[in-house]
């Protein structure tokens, strides 16, 4: 369910994006209608529509007149690209800041990563 804190249309857009990245929604697959969305999450349909609008503006979804909304062909690729860029900023940089705060040397972090990597390869 959505939290009551950030704009709900934003949360809807994020959820659909996540479904696309995880492959739950495929290219050219139809997305639930705004009314179905509204009923399922118990939100105002105008709010759901706003989330959809945001995604069409970003080129993630496209509209077929009279039928509904569909996932764009390049949606997954561009979302993954976008997430990769954010990954270093939001995950790696934050981790390094935390490590610095508590005095974990970078060599120890690299050691840990290499160990995990070896485990994955084995």
């Amino acid at each position, binding site marked *: 369910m*959505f*939290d*009551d*804190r*950030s*704009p*709900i*249309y*934003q949360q809807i857009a994020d959820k659909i994006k996540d479904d696309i990245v995880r492959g739950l929604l495929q290219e050219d697959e139809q997305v639930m209608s705004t*009314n179905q969305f*509204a*009923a399922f*999450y*118990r*939100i*105002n*349909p*105008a*709010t759901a529509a*706003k989330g959809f609008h945001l995604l069409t503006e970003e080129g993630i979804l496209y509209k077929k007149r009279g039928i509904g909304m569909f996932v764009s062909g390049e949606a997954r690729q561009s979302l993954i690209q976008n997430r990769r860029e954010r990954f270093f900023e939001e995950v790696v940089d934050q981790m390094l*800041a935390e490590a610095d705060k508590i005095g974990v040397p970078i060599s120890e972090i690299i050691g840990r990563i290499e160990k995990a990597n070896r485990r994955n390869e084995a």
Partner: protein
Amino acid sequence: MTLGIEVKSLQLNYGSFRAIKDVSFTLAGGKIYGLLGRNGSGKTSLLSILASFREQTSGVVAIGGEAPFENAKIMEQVCFIQESGYMQDSTSVADVLRLSESCWPNWDREYAARLIQLYELPLKKRLSALSRGMKSALGVTVGLASRAPVTIFDEAYLGMDAPSRYAFYEELLQDYMETPRTFILSTHLIEEIGTLFEEVLILDQGHLIMHEETDALRSRGATITGPDEVVDRLTEGLTVLGEQQLGRTKSVTVFGELTKEQRKLALAEGIELGPVSLQDLFVHLTKRRGDGQ
């Protein structure tokens, strides 16, 4: 069919007490509106005027372009449901339904029957024999089945238990999507029902202090938490709604969107930025001296 509502410079006095003070707003209609306010803020007074139950002291109210008071044409387009109800205790549930059917030309008998079944309401019982929850459920049934272009619920569902309330929210939403009309709901249960509102109006001591799209309002508050001197620097010039201090950590709730630069600075300084819920915003916006912290 949807009707727009126009309110201009509205005042309502009870003797020397002014319950509504210079309130103006326009509702385009066809949306779900939330009316929030503390006890005694004037919610019921305002809604009573919209519903032709009361005449304003001064100012203009127009529903579909017409003044509602003692206007039969408008009255049958507006359904006002209050928690207390306004029918005599000796009236039976079946009589309430019959009376309602004669009041509202859009009345949907089948829908009413379905809701009566959903809430397991006994048709033969008198109002005096109903529990608070049942009375609320009956009110909700009448409001929904009225299919009135303007349907107003004034805390009408407070008496219901949580499962019944959630069933009501679902019904309301479903019905709104099938037959769009104007709903106005006043409530204290902001966290429960806030996601249904397209727009929110906040009354405080008779003044309309806020009328905004719900999502826009949600994005306008932020909490800024961190070392006090940094927080003070960051919140300079912002509208501060509330402050809390714990040792050297300060948490400030501000109203208004932060700029990109402010967000960057906050991130660089290790300041925690958090969103504010609709309920918290409401609490901060209507807080008064003497409420304590």
